[in-house]
C-alpha cells in the first residue's frame, strides 16, 4: 500500500499564460517531485495538453487529479499507469566526430541501439534515439566512453491505450454554454 507508483497525468487545458505555474504549484505544495513535464497541442483545436510524470503513493493520485481539475483553465485531467499507456522519450547525443572514425566500436553501439545519426560535421555528430527511459539511458552510458559532448532527453510523451473521452466532454460543454 505504501509503495510509490509511476503515473502519467494527462491534462487537457486552455492555452493560458501562467497555467503551467498553477499546475506545478499543485505538486510543489505537496512536496512532490515532477519526473517529467511536457506540453504540446492536443488532437483538438485550441486545446493544450500537458503530460506530467510523477512517482507518488496510489492514495495521492486521485486527490492530485481533482486539484488539477479544480483549476479554472483545466478542462479535464486523467492519470494512467505505465501499462495503460504507450510512452516514449527522445534523446539527443552530441559526440566528437573523431571518435566515429577512430573507434570502430561506436558504430556498432549506434547500430545495435537503433539510433539515428541526425547530422555529421567535421567536429561533431549528433545521434537521436527515441524509446523508453532505460534504452536512452543505456545508450548514454555506452557513449560516455567516447566523449559525450552534450546530452539531452525530452519529457515523456504518451498516448493511452484506451480511448480518451475528452472530445465528448468538450461537446457537452459546448452545448451547455450555448
Amino acid at each position, binding site marked *: 500500500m505504501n509503495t510509490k507508483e509511476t503515473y502519467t497525468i494527462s491534462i487537457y487545458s*486552455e492555452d493560458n499564460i*501562467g497555467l503551467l505555474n*498553477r499546475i506545478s504549484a499543485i505538486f510543489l505544495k505537496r512536496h512532490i517531485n515532477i519526473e517529467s513535464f511536457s506540453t504540446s497541442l492536443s488532437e483538438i483545436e485550441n486545446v493544450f495538453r500537458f503530460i506530467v510524470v510523477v512517482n507518488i503513493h496510489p492514495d495521492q493520485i486521485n486527490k492530485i487529479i*481533482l486539484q488539477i481539475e479544480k483549476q*479554472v*483553465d483545466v478542462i479535464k485531467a486523467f492519470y494512467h499507469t505505465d501499462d495503460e499507456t504507450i510512452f516514449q522519450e527522445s534523446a539527443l547525443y552530441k559526440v566528437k566526430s573523431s571518435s566515429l572514425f577512430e573507434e570502430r566500436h561506436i558504430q556498432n553501439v549506434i547500430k545495435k541501439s537503433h539510433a539515428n545519426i541526425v547530422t555529421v560535421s567535421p567536429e561533431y555528430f549528433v545521434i537521436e534515439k527515441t524509446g523508453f527511459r532505460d534504452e536512452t539511458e543505456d545508450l548514454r552510458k555506452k557513449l560516455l566512453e567516447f566523449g559525450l559532448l552534450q546530452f539531452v532527453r525530452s519529457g515523456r510523451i504518451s498516448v493511452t491505450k484506451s480511448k480518451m473521452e475528452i472530445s465528448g466532454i468538450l461537446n457537452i460543454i*459546448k452545448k451547455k*454554454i450555448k
Partner: protein
Amino acid sequence: MKNNIKSIKISGAEAVIHSLLAEGVVLIYGYPGGAIMPIYDELYKFQEKLQHVLTRHEQGAAHAAQGYARTSGRVGVAVATSGPGATNLVTGIADAQIDSTPIVCITGQVASNLLGSDAFQETDIIGISTPVTKWNYQITKASEIPSILSKAFYIAKSGRPGPVLIDITKDAQFEEFDFKYEHCRGIRSYKPVPDLNIDLLKDAAEIINKAKKPMIVWGQGVVLGQAEEILKEFIEHSGIPAVWTILGASAIPTSHPLNKGMVGMHGNYGPNILTNECDVLIAIGMRFDDRVTGKLETYAKQAKVIHFEIDPAEINKNVYADVAVLGDCKISLKKIIPLINQDAYSSWIYRFDSLMEIENEKVIKNDLFPTKKGLTMGESIRIINKYTKGDAVIVTDVGQHQMVACRYTNFIKSKSNITSGGLGTMGFALPAAIGAKMGAPGRQVITIIGDGGFQMTIQELGTIFQTKIAVKIVVLNNGFLGMVRQWQQMFFDKRYASTEMVNPDFVKIAKGYYIDAERVSERNNLDAAVSRMLSSDKPYFLEICVEKEDNVFPMIPTGASVSDIRLS
C-alpha cells in the same frame, strides 16, 4: 443591462470603472500608487457612483473586501498599486482562498514594455498570487479589460467562491479602445456546480433512515450557498442533532434546540466526543479541516460518512465519504428532505445534553459567571450578548478571544460570524469589520480582537476615523499572545518565549484617532461600559483588561483524537 453591448471609445482605466459598475460594484477598498494612478484618476471622476475607501495598508483593503463580501453576499473589491501594494494584498488573498471568500483584487503593473526589467515597483504578482487565487490574469491590452473583468467576477462568485487577482499594466490603463461589456455566462473549462446525482441522494437517504445515532456537521458552505433555511428544515424534519464548524457559526440560531454546538479543537465537549460515537455523520458544506478532525486515523471511524459538497476536490481529501453528494447543498437538501423519515432520537440527543451539562459545570459556568477577581473573556461576551440579543455581526481576529467569542456568542441571524478560520490571520478583524459594517450598514457590527492581533492592523483606526464607519471595537487585553502562551503553558513547560506583550495605552491611541474610547478593568464597570459602547451611533473603542493567564477549554491537543478532548 445598461452597459451591455454599447460601444464607446474610452481608456482602459475608465473601462475598469465601467466594468465594475456593470458588475454592480458600488464600493471598493484600496490604496493608490504609481502604477494604478490612471484608475485612481477615473475613480476621482466617478466618485458619485463608485465609493472608494482608503485603507491605511493594502492588507486592510483585502480584509475589508472580505468582510464586505461575507456580510453582503456580494463580491468584495480591493485595489492596489504594483510591487509592494500588490504583495501587501497577498495575506488577504490567501485568507480569502482558504475561507472561500469571493473577492476581486485589481493591481496596477508597470508598463508592458518594462515587464521583466526589474522596473521600479515591479513584482511578479501573478507568480506570487498563483497558489492562493482561484484564478488570476495579467492584462497588457486595454481591449482585454471588459472580458477579463467579467470573467473575474463570474469566477470569484460562482461555485465554491474564491479570490481572483487581475493585474493591469499601466499602458493598458492609458490605451483607448472601443468599450463594450458582456457578462460572463460560462467558461468551457470551468464547471462551478457539479451535477446532482439523484441515485446517490437516495443512497444517502437510505443510510440516514437506518441511523440510530446520526449527527449533522455543517460548515460555511451552507452560508455561501444560502441554504440556511433549507438546512433548518432538514434538521427539524429529520430530528437529527446538528453541530457546526467555526465558519458555519450563525447559520442556525444558537438557541435552536437541535443546534448542539461547535466541533473542533476548542469546540464543545459533546459534539467532539459524539463524533466518535455517531453511526452516521452527515457533513454539509464543510471540508474536514484538521482543526475539526484532530487525529484523522481515529476520526469517526465507526460512522458512515455522507458528504454534501460543491467542490469535488474535497471528497475523500481528508475523510473518506461512504456517499458523496456533489452539488449545491441548497438543492441537494431540498431534494433529500422528502426521502428522510422523521425521528426523535431522544436517547441520542440526551447524550449531547448530558455532556453539555458536564461542560457547563466544568468550563462554561466559570467562564461566563466567574467568581475570581479578574475579568474573563467569556463574561465580556455574555454582557455583549445581553445588549445585542444576538442581533449583531461579530467580527473576530485569531486566538483565544476568537474561540471564546465563537463559543459564547448568541447568534440569531446568519452571516453574523466573520472570522479568519482556515488561514488564522491575526490582524484580520479590524479591517474586516470595516467591510462587514459597510456590507450590512443596518446592523450592529462588533469586532472582538486580542491585544496582539489588534496591533497587527491597528492603523485601520485611521480608516474608521476618516469614513466615520460606526464599528464597535472591543479589545480583550490579557497582555499576552494568549493562545500561544496557553500552548507554552500546556506543552512547553510554561516557557513563555516572546508571548508577553508590553502594550501601549490603547485608549489614548484610539482617542488620537478621535474615536470615543474607554477602558474597563473592574467587573462592576463592565456592564455599563458595554452598554455605552453599543448605544453609541459612532465608532467606539472599548478595551477590556482580562485575566492574564486564562486558558480556553475544552481543547483537543494537536494530534489527539476528538474524543480525547480535555476540559482542563
